[in-house]
């Protein structure tokens, strides 16, 4: 569906994206994960035919974005980091305008607008002026304009930016609901969002894809075995004893000391394979109250591992050493 081959983007002498090569399949939801300035927005703007690549090729549905930009634009829906809205229009008027701009004809406009409103749950505010909507609704209108012409490919740049927790959950559901009918590329630097929403993650740093795969792939590649988090009601010593008696268990760490009164304790168990059922059976069998047991979400740590700069640490050390070597008077002057 989308083929990116040796894509590069330079601003002057500065390389912002590249070399970037990947393929995104039909109906997939792919997350572009990276720190600020990693090249996510630039990549998305190229995919949306808003920015000309310096070199390389990007093909959407077999069409090259540089050779056939108009045809590609008709197949792409794009939500930039700041939704392109007109405050003086009602939601319905705006969506109809966006559909007609994307060459939806005649009676098809009404149908497309109704579908987009339904999918993004904008029915209640369809006659309200966009300028009077909350931030969450404005994001929804932004997504609705991106899908109103039923594009095969939807590009969403930081769709959850600035949303409150309830709106984040709703937005997550909304993005998931696009699966199948649309191929979706979502960018975010909020790691859990990407892992919750996407089928595949592309970790991008300095404009290059550093890693791609699912969260499980990432976890298994970077840490040996699985890490399971268990919350217990008391009995830390007994629990440790029980857990260490299980052959698959390699290590048991206490991450949360017992809270006064509640006597809760949280342990993280590192084990080979998937030992969750075995751990649960052993603890319950020993009469220990298990409140929670689940795979520890470690994408954040793993992501940092992928994008971390070992050089930075070295640089900091060198800087500290240089500062220490500097005479006290010079430091004061500075």
């Amino acid at each position: 569906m989308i083929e990116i081959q040796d894509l590069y983007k330079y601003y002057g002498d500065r390389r912002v994206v590249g070399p970037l090569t990947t393929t995104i399949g039909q109906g997939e939801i792919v997350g572009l994960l990276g720190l600020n300035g990693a090249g996510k927005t630039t990549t998305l703007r190229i995919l949306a035919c808003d920015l000309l690549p310096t070199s390389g090729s990007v093909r959407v549905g077999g069409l090259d974005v540089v050779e056939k930009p108009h045809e590609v634009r008709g197949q792409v829906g794009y939500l930039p980091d700041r939704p392109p809205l007109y405050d003086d229009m009602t939601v319905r008027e705006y969506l109809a305008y966006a559909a007609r701009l994307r060459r939806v004809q005649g009676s098809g406009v009404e149908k497309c607008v109704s579908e987009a409103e339904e999918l993004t749950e904008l029915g209640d505010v369809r006659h309200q002026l966009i300028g009077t909507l909350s931030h969450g609704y404005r994001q929804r209108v932004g997504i609705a304009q991106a899908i109103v012409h039923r594009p095969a490919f939807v590009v969403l740049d930081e769709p959850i930016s600035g949303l409150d927790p309830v709106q984040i959950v709703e937005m997550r559901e909304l993005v998931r609901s696009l699966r199948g009918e649309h191929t979706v590329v979502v960018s975010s630097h909020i790691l859990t969002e990407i892992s919750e929403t996407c089928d595949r993650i592309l970790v991008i740093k300095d404009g290059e894809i550093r890693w791609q795969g699912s969260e499980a792939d990432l976890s298994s590649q970077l840490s040996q075995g699985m890490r399971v988090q268990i919350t217990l009601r008391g009995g830390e010593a007994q629990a440790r004893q029980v857990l260490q008696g299980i052959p698959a268990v390699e290590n048991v760490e206490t991450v949360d000391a017992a809270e006064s009164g509640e006597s809760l304790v949280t342990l993280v168990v590192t084990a080979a394979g998937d030992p969750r059922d075995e751990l649960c059976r052993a603890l319950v069998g020993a009469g220990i109250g298990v409140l929670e047991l689940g795979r520890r979400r470690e994408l954040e740590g793993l992501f940092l591992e992928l994008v971390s700069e070992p050089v930075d640490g070295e640089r900091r050390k060198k800087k500290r050493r240089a500062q220490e070597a500097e005479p006290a008077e010079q430091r004061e002057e500075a």
Partner: protein
Amino acid sequence: MSQSLLIARRELYAYIRSPMGALIIAAALLGGGMWFNWRGVGQPLLSAEVLAVFFETASGMVMLCSVVLGTRLLAEERQSGSMILLKTAPINEREIVFGKFLAGYLMIVVLIALTAYMPLHVYLNGKVSFGHIAVGYAGLLLLGAASIAVCLFASALASSQVVAVIIGAALMLALVLLWAPAKVTEPPLNKFLNGLALHHENFRPFMNGILQLKSVAFYLVVTYFFLLCASKVLEARRWR
């Protein structure tokens, strides 16, 4: 063409929804009416001379309103972030520019139409031909088209409305004041500069009821040239 009409409709809709369009036109009519009353009605002039004063006043109103209305057309979209909707839609730059031009020009046409009571007053109470009025209005419509095109070009260049107004006003002023360097230069340069002046040499025949094809062609060429420049600027910026 249908996409241009769609863009023009949205733009006009924005003028109607907000009081801005009405306020600009009302202010221009008030200022222009007062100026005409002072310079035309209150003076011992022949009816044809009063009518010429009216067209001179109206041309000033048209040029001022063009700066205010025309410079916001693209710069506002860019400033508010809605430009990306047009940039990523399957429409070309000419359609965008023509749609914006149509909207701005229609507002100028509304302004020109609302001035009709002033020449009507002269027509009913004095001795002027209908042809003089018709030619004068044709001149205003041509000057309006050229002025909106110049300001739309300024709007395409600028990233904010304030900068667009400054560029637009400077361009308009330069084009209007070309008669000044023409006065101190020798032929054929002075003829060339006079011929390029947006108002002086090219608008005066219309003011006096003379339909000069050379001036009609001048305004049409200026309109086309600046619209073309605006679409080229958008084209260059679209991929950046």
